């Protein structure tokens, strides 16, 4: 069957409203990358296993490869290009850089989205590690990633709660 049927959808992407026409079978990751120019939209396994496609949909991390873009109609989507806000983005970037929590970089956007969720929800370090276990880093850089997030949590604890 050809994609004769296109759906008009709109969603907020990193704070900006997007209006698109998409075929139903296209995943959110595909549309974010191909139509919206998000370089962080990384398709990995397409099975929900690896998590490199993880984006924030209505405030929670979701596998972009398992959500059809048409399902995201009306959603608030945030990617590693922006995360929750510029401060959070800068803090997470710096922590990843400081701890060298990046090797090839393919999994990095997904981990940044998880890190953002962890910080926004003020998870404990144990909960943070559990949450990070959702995604795979095939360069096996887990320790630096955990260190970066632990650093962010410690910095937040020092500052007290707040943005």
């Amino acid at each position: 069957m050809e994609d004769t049927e296109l759906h008009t959808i709109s969603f907020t992407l990193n704070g900006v409203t997007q209006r698109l026409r998409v075929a139903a079978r296209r995943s959110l990751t595909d549309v974010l990358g191909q139509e919206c120019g998000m370089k962080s939209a990384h398709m990995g396994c397409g099975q929900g296993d690896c998590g490199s496609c993880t984006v924030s949909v209505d405030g929670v991390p979701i596998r972009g490869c398992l959500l059809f873009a048409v399902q995201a109609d009306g959603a608030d989507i945030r990617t590693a290009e922006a995360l929750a806000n510029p401060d959070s983005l800068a803090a997470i970037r710096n922590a990843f850089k400081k701890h060298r929590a990046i090797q090839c970089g393919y999994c990095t956007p997904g981990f940044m989205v998880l890190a953002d969720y962890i910080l926004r929800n003020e998870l404990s370090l144990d909960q943070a590690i559990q949450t990070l276990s959702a995604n795979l880093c095939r360069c096996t850089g887990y320790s630096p990633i955990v260190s970066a997030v632990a650093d962010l949590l410690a910095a937040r604890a020092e500052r007290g709660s707040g943005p």
Partner: protein
Amino acid sequence: MYPASFRYHRPSGLHHALELLSRHKADAAILAGGQSLVPRMNLRQATPENIVDLNRIADLSKLAVVNDVLEIGAMVRHQSFCCEAAIGFLSLPSGFAELLGRMADTIGNLPIRLRGTIGGSLANASPKAQWALLSFLLDADIVIENAGGTRCERYTQFVKGDGRTTLKPDDLITNVRIKVPPAEWRYGFAQLAPQPNRPASAFALVAITLEDARVRDCRIAIGACTPVPCRLHALEDWLSGRRASVSGSDDLVEIAAAAVRQQGGESQPYIEHLAVVATTRAIAQAVEC
């Protein structure tokens, strides 16, 4: 890979969804959380011509306790059970609420739990599904609707094998009903998986009541290691009335092993061993908690 093309339907109400299913029958697939269906579509193992997306039907995401029965809408996400804010208002017995959270917490990982639904899980009837195990232990009923009407089936009768159920193409699971257990029930849940976040090779779920340091009543179910979860009635009978201190004894291990072997199927000594370990751990937890 792109899934095969399909027509996308987004009903806003249950009635519309049932009508779509009745119109398209076997050519339609129901999209709930999509965490099992979409991976299969991405591999083109599933190529439905029509997708009926339930995600905008608010009525299917309700949770309530009605006459001591916990009613869980089919679209309630796994992660809801981990979240005090989502289930606290139900005022479930604390042990039971904690059990639901613990079991949910072992499903996949956070993004999967945030999307995956209890109705989808029960419809898939995977023997490795936590909610199937719970439904076997607590005799859950499921409410199934189609354009012709509504029926209620005991989940143990609904499942006919690994992934096989009595569900017809135009049927939709709308609700799960579990009688709220008495507050005195104590629970144990143990699973053995090749690695965290992976489906279990064997898991066991136990509910017991104690009286004067003796087991008054107990229910024991195992899953993942059998095509369908099952109760270990022989072990339940043996354990009832015994001192709680029997937990951890060699006798218990022996009886548990015999009960697991009875469920048999193909003989896999290693998996059987895992089932016995899970069972004895779950019993110990329930006794000690």
